[in-house]
């Protein structure tokens, strides 16, 4: 069901970009904005989803750059 998306996750006082299942983060950034920009770049090039997590660790936003089987409604 899953497609190994890119995730922007809190990393202490910083933000990391991590592919689901990857052993380590592909990048750590000072701001969430920078991390989202890098995560979007990677998701677009890999044709996958980008999941942005909140400071509380939970996914708060999903953007699809692949064949989105479940596009946003409305």
């Amino acid at each position, binding site marked *: 069901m*899953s497609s*190994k998306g890119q995730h922007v996750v809190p990393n202490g006082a910083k933000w990391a970009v991590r592919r689901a*299942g990857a052993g380590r983060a592909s990048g750590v950034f000072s701001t969430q904005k920078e991390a989202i920009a890098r995560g979007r770049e990677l998701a677009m090039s890999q044709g996958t989803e980008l999941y942005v997590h909140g400071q509380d*660790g*939970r996914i*708060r936003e999903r953007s699809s750059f692949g064949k989105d089987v479940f596009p946003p409604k409305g």
Partner: protein
Amino acid sequence: MSDPKFEDSVFINCPFDEDFEPILQAILFCVLYLGKKPRLATERNDSGENRLEKIRGLIESSKYSIHDLSRCQATKKGEHFRLNMPFELGIDYGCRQYFGNGRSEKRFLILEEKKYRFQAAISDISGSDIVAHGADFGKAVKAVRNWLVSEAGVNSVGATRILAEYVVFQEWYWEKKLAEGASEGEIKEYPTAELMMAMEEWIGLGKPI
């Protein structure tokens, strides 16, 4: 379904409010990932069952307990601090001391949001080891992981690995919910009982990526 074994059960005594929910859910993931079974007062919805009786049953049938005292101080004027958590810690302590029948083997982890704050609210336990998580889900996971490794002898999986797997689970959960016809708004409500069932399902399926 039969109740989980005493040795596998982890009673979770924590605030059930919206602000604490993400920390609770991360703790639940950590406990399940390390092979234990979280036991919550909200796990059964029988209105005819007395809440205190339910809690007593959970305490007696759990070898391990996580007590989070993060709501020991009111956050604004006129608000009451919450007594349920220290009360249930007291029941658990009594169970360990007086129940007999192997309950002296019970193990506790006491968590708090801020270091030393509990000493003013409940000084009787000032000699106990209490771990502060700073309302950070990652620190809470680390505290639970360290405690389960040292006290329950679970496999020594690193906290970083557990948090990375939490990311994998969340992606799986999000896609599963979309496939079931949920809207993104509905998914973001993250109902704890449903999330916990999904965590168990994900683990049962072999933690798919």
